């Protein structure tokens, strides 16, 4: 397993920070030096959330420089576009197929990027863009909040981390009553296929 720079982005309440904590613990137990930092703006409360996670033999800054992200995990489309420029050329983008328009869009004072704009934002950087039905899958499993576990399940194929190891860390991170359903969500994520 090689070191990686991972950027996880989404909206407050989606479980971005939990997902990055889980990946960080997995990297720690794999013997890496790990640094991570979450930027929450004014607490979270529905605002943009971005989490930088780096693991390697040696890590200096917890913030990843722009253009050096190996894997961008986006929980929402607008946030994916906001952070696209952090990806390195040929980096991997995993984007949850979900639109959460901010209030300015609902009130009609700002616009939400259309699918073409989302594509264009990534086109000039990388061909590895995976749009995945994470939220739809979570809802089908009974709880939209499990989208973070599903996305981790999808991402594990690119991480070089043993799925069993990640799963045991997910189980340890969650209270008992959520464990069963999240293990199922992780499995669903592993089997998930990207939308073309």
């Amino acid at each position, binding site marked *: 397993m090689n070191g990686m720079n991972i950027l996880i982005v989404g909206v407050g309440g989606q479980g971005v920070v939990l997902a990055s904590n889980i990946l960080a613990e997995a990297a720690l137990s794999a013997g890496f030096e790990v640094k991570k930092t979450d930027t929450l703006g*004014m607490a979270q409360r529905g605002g943009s959330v971005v989490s930088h996670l780096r693991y390697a033999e040696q890590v*200096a800054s917890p*913030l990843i420089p722009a253009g050096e992200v190996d894997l961008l995990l986006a929980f929402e489309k607008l946030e994916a576009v906001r952070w696209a420029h952090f990806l390195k050329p040929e980096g991997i983008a995993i984007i949850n197929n979900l639109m959460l328009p901010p209030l300015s869009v609902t009130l009609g004072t700002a616009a939400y990027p259309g699918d073409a704009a989302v594509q264009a934002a990534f086109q000039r950087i990388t061909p590895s863009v995976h749009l995945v039905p994470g939220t739809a899958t979570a809802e089908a499993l009974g709880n939209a909040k499990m989208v973070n576990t599903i996305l981790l399940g999808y991402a594990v194929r690119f991480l070089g981390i043993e799925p069993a190891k990640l799963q045991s860390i997910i189980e340890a991170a969650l209270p008992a009553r959520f464990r069963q359903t999240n293990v199922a969500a992780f499995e669903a994520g592993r089997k998930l296929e990207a939308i073309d």
Partner: protein
Amino acid sequence: MERQLLSGNEAIALGAAHAGVRVAAAYPGTPSTEILEAAARFPEIYTEWSSNEAVAVEVALGASYTGVRAMASMKHVGLNVAADAFMAAATTGVRGGLVIISADDPGIHSSQNEQDSRNYARLGRVPCLEPADSQEAYTFTRLAFELSEEFDTPVLLRPTTRVCHSKSVVQPVEPAAITLTPQFVHEPAKLVMLPGAARGRWPKLTERLEKLAAWGETAECNHIINGSAELGIITSGISFHYAREVFPEASFLKLGLSYPLPERKIKEFTAGVSRIMVIEENDGFLELQLKAMGLSVIGKAAFPRTGEYSPDIIRAAAAGAGLTRPGNPAAAGDTELAKRPPLLCPGCPHAGIYFTLSSLGHRSVLPGRQARPPRLTICGDIGCYTLGAYAPLSAMDTCGCMGAGISQAAGMARAGLPEKPLAVIGDSTFMHSGINSLLNAVYNQANICVLILDNATTAMTGHQGHPGSGVSPAGERRNNVVIENLVRGAGVADVTVVDAFDLKAVRNAVKQGLAAGQLAVVIVRGDCPTLTRKRGKPRLVNEKCDDCGACLLVGCSAIQRDEDGHIFIDRSVCVGEYCTICQQVCPRGAIVEAETAS
């Protein structure tokens, strides 16, 4: 001991526990809050949310006077509130180790300014330690307690947001074997700062600084990393890691003790390199001292004077000043994208009062309608409820510092503002320093209307307790102060308590408060939904809806428009009957209870 992945704040708490701390006091404030929360997990430490930062320092200082180790933690602006107590501690010195933690916020992630706490270290002639990551947060906390006792001084520990909230690996070492029994030794010449005694203490502070500077010459926390003879970088805190990322080949002098400075070590370092850069966030605090030593350094002339640093910012600034070649220029992000500011949560008890103020004050405008000139003067304050300043509520005209709203409103009234000003303050802020302002308003007969938004917690920072809520940091029950009794006891005759979710009652109470010819206090009471986690049957928009958008003016993120412009409610986040604000607002009665809970 086992390696752990900890945030800087958790590492500070672990360091304090391993240093044998007995008393820890704090007022919550981002980014410092989790220090006390993590300390509360150690049963051997007494922890409390003090009503404000000055109180926290005084509690910790009192504990230190009995010979035990104690700490007080706060955010940078909290140190302003605690400045008097900080200076008192600096003057008398300590008995048991006393560490005061002030977490700075470069880049203003969640504060009202970017002030640099290190200036207080100089003001109080107090040593300042700056950790760069979680490992140092742990090690420096333990070191701080030792220094405090050895040099008879409080120690200022200054982490920054990025250190507090980033996680990195910590290798803890064996806890210190500290077994101290609290005991008070009478020594008025040290502890009673009447002028005669204070005159004896003050020169000791200067002596203390000299000894500390001498200690710093050989201390491990100030270390040199030998690299290129071309470029030497002097830095402290997290900037060290950023600079290492950008200039891996440079020589480094990393200062853990950023006040007082080890002059000999610095001269030794600078003699070996041809060019010296100082890279530090916030003020040019090191730079100024280095220049005063007669050194020629490149600091704020090249690197930003404001804002948070990052490897990208350091690289760009260095390239801009011709100090290095630009790195691979990353494509810039799209700045035109719709922003996503934080919002009041669905089911927030503040939404109804702000909706009311917004409509009484002509602040809210339906999409496509012309805005009217705003009415009402609304003095705000600091907490979750400051989010009421954002559109569509836009119901806040001032916000300066904790507790200021009531006094500002009183000042406006006394200045002769024709309409009666309103002050809006949360319960925790009211306990922190709003009560002082209210006492002043009573005494000076300020004709204002004060709205105390009581959601029974300090919600902004994550639901910490305060004197009105009666919950300890470890979650135990403590006594609680009843706000209306306190307000009446302070001498306010016109006191009303209303249910935050009863819009009609809220509207009437505000109107009456504004009409009364004297100081009126309205306590608007409703639980914070993210604390109680009560969920009822979600609301539903039925066919009577004509998509007028009036309900959007509540600012509830559960209410949205679909791609065809139709209003709908996201049932997975609506709290239902515990709120119903949108239901009360809809002019067509189109919002109803859904049949089943989701």
